[in-house]
């Protein structure tokens, strides 16, 4: 369980996230949705400890999240950053096992874990010795996800994991993600600007606009009882895009 207690973030005078109370239930998938610059990635970066709140504080599993508790929590966290987060000078295999190797886990254990995960993420094992440039966009995303899952994280953070992929690949990955999240029993927090992804994957959806939380709840609530006109407009705009 992750809780925001009036946590907010400013960069100088620019407000990235207004102070907010937020709840990310354990073992559920929460989807943060909004336009770019709405503050959704800021929330992800706050939870991963890449940045720290300027106001309020964050609680993870009942403990205050601080730079002191960061190292311990980071190894229980997996993070898939937007495209291009694989280290280009390492093969897919080297990328995936890097951290496990540093923690000096046995090679047999590492290999077993990796093979098991490749089945789950459907990363073809014959591509393991290829370099990132030799992989397609979808394959890269699957490798990234495999890397994030290597240490069996309790929290999985995904920043636009399906962006910039062609529609067929995207549809396939979406189905695989859904199956995976259901099986894994992990707290997933995913950022997207795409309604379809939010509808398919989100147990809980948070809509943001300009650093402010507009509405949160199950996806169905957004069309049945929108809290303000922006919600309706946001939905209509995306639907029109699909129909046109």
């Amino acid at each position: 369980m992750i809780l925001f207690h009036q946590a907010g973030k400013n960069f100088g005078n620019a407000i990235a996230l207004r102070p907010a109370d937020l709840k990310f239930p354990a073992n559920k998938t929460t989807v943060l949705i909004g336009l770019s610059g709405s503050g959704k990635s800021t929330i992800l970066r706050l939870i991963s400890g890449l940045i720290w709140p300027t106001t309020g504080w964050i609680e993870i599993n009942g403990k205050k999240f601080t730079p002191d508790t960061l190292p311990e929590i980071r190894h229980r966290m997996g993070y898939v950053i937007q495209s291009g987060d694989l280290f280009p000078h390492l093969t897919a295999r080297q990328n995936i096992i890097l951290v496990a190797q540093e923690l000096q886990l046995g090679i047999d254990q590492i290999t077993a874990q990796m093979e098991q995960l490749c089945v789950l993420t459907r990363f073809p094992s014959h591509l393991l010795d290829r370099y990132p440039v030799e992989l397609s966009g979808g394959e890269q995303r699957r490798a990234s996800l495999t890397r994030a899952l290597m240490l069996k994280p309790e929290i999985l953070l995904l920043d636009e994991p399906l962006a910039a992929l062609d529609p067929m690949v995207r549809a396939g990955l979406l189905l695989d993600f859904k199956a995976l999240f259901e099986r894994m029993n992990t707290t997933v927090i995913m950022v997207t600007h795409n309604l379809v992804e939010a509808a398919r994957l989100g147990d809980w959806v948070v809509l943001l606009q300009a650093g402010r939380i507009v509405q949160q709840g199950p996806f169905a609530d957004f069309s049945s009882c929108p809290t303000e006109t922006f919600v309706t407009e946001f939905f209509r705009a995306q639907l029109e895009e699909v129909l046109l």
Partner: protein
Amino acid sequence: MKARLIVVLIGTLLVGRASFGGPSIVLGSKKFTESFVLSELAKQNLEGAGFDVEHRQGMGGTIILWEALQQGSIAAYPEYTGTIREEILKRPMAASIGELRKQLAEYGVGVTEELGFNNTYALVMTRARANQLGIQKISDLAKHPELRLGMTHEFLGRHDGWGPLEKRYGLHMSDVRGLDHTLGYLALLNGEIDVKDAYTTDAKIGQNDLIVLADDLKFFPQYRAVFLFRLDTPYRAIQALRRLEGTLDEARMVHLNEIAERTKDYSAAADWYFEQIGQVGNFNGHESLQHRLIRWTVRHLILVSLSMALAIVIGIPLGIYASKEGLASEIILTLTGLIQTVPSLALLALLVPIPFLGIGPVTAVVALFLYGLLPIVRNTATGLRDISPQIRDAASVLALKPRTRLLKIFLPLASPAILAGIKTSTIITIGSATLAALIGAGGLGEPIISGLNLNDGTTILEGAIPAALMAIAAQGLFSILDRFLIPRGLRLRPT
């Protein structure tokens, strides 16, 4: 880590110094033919007396030689009484050689009796130009302030040089420029300048039928040739040096200079001298071109590799520091940049007076190392700064230890930039290392400087061609190294 670096640095310098050690008597000479010839004569006398002698040719001007003598990196070199008074002791009043000797002894330096000739400064013009303008003496120049003057840098800066001379004669020349001595003669003969400074025993004066302008106000002091030597030099060596006393009059010296310039061979001049005075010089044979080339090239390679090794070992950690935002980074980048703006010759001159450096290979290596730093530091810093934010975030959220992050992620990603920096630096250093010969550190600069002095293109090429080939070879070597050192994933093209 830092301590270890310092130990490595000091170790390299010590080993460097030890491996360059050798002959028991080291002679120096200034950067002009006569000085070369005099030291060559002294060398043969010393060898005849059973000493191992190294002659560091054309080390530079008075200040560099005097420093080298005091520090003990050379045991003796030829000097002129006028220079000792004006430039070294800065007491123009000291009259006799006995008085000079007393004052020099305070520095632990001795002086021989006069070798014989007076080689004073003079101003020279081509006969045609002088006749055309009706100029015979220095005071005649006052009527022609438009004349173009090309003076050696040393003459321009001396107490008995151009500045005081101009004042004494009340001249107001509008076009005075600094020129290398030998190149200056070319410029004079080509009509690019009208007047230049010369030594009265220059072979070029007779060869080219130049007019020596009369010093009608008796401005130039006497420049009688002597040898300066350290008082701790073995007595037998001093005796050997003193055998030159009184054996060289003006005519003989002009002739020796002329032979040296014509044959491009200092030993040939020495042979003629020993024939004249009825002694047999010490024949150690004339070194073959192949042997010389190997000796210069090997020395050049040693200078370049030592300085590059230092520049890499120190430059990469500095570059890593400099890649982080902040004051330290600004200071590192500004300082390394600043070093690069100091002209290489000036940098050498600045380093020579520093204790433990002095004249020789150690100083050359230090100077080349300082020059080589900038491309390596800058490329390392830029290579690291250019790593994308996604990659940085990924390395952070994976909770890699800082050491792993640097060694396994950041440095390999920056390796193409770092290697490019090392390549640039090496190629620049191969070029700059030719200047090492100016401070007696040898290398391919030796034939280049000799060639410049003798105005001999072939000799210049003996150094210039191998240096150019070495630069091309370095370029090729680095292309091969790239394949081994840059990770494969960074060399692949997207499919």
